[in-house]
């Protein structure tokens, strides 16, 4: 049975989906890639934009871009995952 994702895992899934697509992605693609409902997606995009981890183009259905801070988050998350896996935390 799949475990429910934590908030951190969802944020990681969103950012990694953008990174894999070369740093920018259409919102609809992001929704499928990160496996979120439309409502949750909107809420996360708002939150991540506020925290400057992503940027959204102004126009309707504009692309979602990952920022430098977002890339730093991914790096830090990978290190955290490596640590938790190594120590079984």
């Amino acid at each position, binding site marked *: 049975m799949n475990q429910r994702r934590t908030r951190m895992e969802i944020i990681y899934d969103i950012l990694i989906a953008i990174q894999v697509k070369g740093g920018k992605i259409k919102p609809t693609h992001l929704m499928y890639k990160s496996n979120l409902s439309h409502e949750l997606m909107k809420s996360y995009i708002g939150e991540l934009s506020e925290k400057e981890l992503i940027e959204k183009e102004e126009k309707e259905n504009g692309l979602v871009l990952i920022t430098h801070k977002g890339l730093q988050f991914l790096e830090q998350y990978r290190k955290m995952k490596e*640590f938790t896996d*190594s*120590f079984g*935390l």
Partner: protein
Amino acid sequence: MAAIVFGPEWFSGLTVLFELVTVLVTFLIAVYSYRLYLFSKEKKFVYFSISFLAIMVSFLAKIITTIASHYSGLDPLVQSITNVSMGISSGTPYITSLGFLVHQEFMLLGLAGIYLINQRNRSILQAGLLAYLVSVITVLSNAFYFVFYATAAIFVALIAHYYVKNYVGKRTTSSFLIMVSFLFILLSHFVFILVILNPTLFFIIAEIVQLLGYSLLLYAYTFVTIK
């Protein structure tokens, strides 16, 4: 007692050097884990950090005691602290008793903490019970030194068992290194139990094995964090 707890006097300089490595490793892991807490706000990281800090304090107490025991001028100060805190066996120099007491208490608390963090169904009650038992064992160990090493060995055995299972599940180099380092630390605790048979020989072997364990843990730490 002093020879059993702190080894032969001629070896004390090396003991201090060996244990400085341990202090460094535990400090680095504690700081890194705290940084991960700041990043993720997950409490397990702060508990992990506190546990390693406790082990660091434990070794610091042992180092300070080893160094200070060479300077009798420190005894009156330590004696007054000891008198306030609790009655300690009269046959042992105060500085040795107090140093060993702090070493034991923090070592067992740290190991109990790491053990608890690895348990999926941990609770405040379990933590409280463990802290109480650790304190009782610490007091008992002042009279029977091997109680401390045996208890520490049991905790390290439980932790090492968890890391063996973790390695079997993950099969990564870092989990392998951490498993092996804790197996060395476990072996060192078993050898410490034998110190009563031959204080010089077994103490030196135990210290070297312990150094190997913590050096491997330092290597594992750098392997995990500097990638």
